[in-house]
């Protein structure tokens, strides 16, 4: 088994299933915070998926996407936290 097949048929599916599990958390919530945490984790899984995919296709340029993910992803979380705080204050 080459590493590509290993990655394609074992690792990638596991990652995908993980993503699916996290997505279920996203759906059931119950609070907005749960969804935000799930979203954050989804992106983290995405970063690994991209890394694996870069190996499979032998296209390291995909890593750049990962890099941006890693840098920017938490900004969404920051924004939602901001929302939660401000919203509380306004009510």
């Amino acid at each position, binding site marked *: 088994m080459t590493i590509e097949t290993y990655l394609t048929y074992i690792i990638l599916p596991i990652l995908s299933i993980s993503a699916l599990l996290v997505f279920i958390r996203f759906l059931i919530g119950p609070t907005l915070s749960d969804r935000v945490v799930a979203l954050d984790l989804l992106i983290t899984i995405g970063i690994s998926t991209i890394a694996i995919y870069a190996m499979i296709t032998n296209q390291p*340029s995909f890593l*750049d*996407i990962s*890099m*941006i993910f890693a*840098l*920017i992803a938490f*900004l969404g979380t*920051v*924004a939602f*936290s*901001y929302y939660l*705080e*401000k919203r509380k204050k306004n009510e």
Partner: protein
Amino acid sequence: MKSIILTTVSKTLLPLLLLFSVFVLLRGHYLPGGGFIAGLIASIAFILHSFANGLKKTRHLLRIHPGFLIPVGLALAIGSAIAPMIFQDLPVMTGLWYHNEIPVIGKIGSALFFDSGVYLVVIGVSLTIIFTISEKA
């Protein structure tokens, strides 16, 4: 948001992200990236800073109104687009290239200036939008 932790990290992240954005800008012609993506990254850097430290401090840091970057960027982009028409009687947007390669950046040409214009405009636009909204919030 009042968080020492966020404030502290944001101070590290700002230069990091800015550096990263320049990196993405310069390599755009060869690898994924380019002015637009770079501009977004740079503006996100400032947005993060403003989340952590408040808008006032970010404005102070920027010194100029981000809106000012828009005409500057536009002028740069339009200028590099019409340069071939003015200087060489070639159609607008024709690529002009400097013969020798420069390390790190690669070949220097009007496309790079154009992309830099895009970069500046995108920063100006994103920041103007976000700052305006946050200010009036």
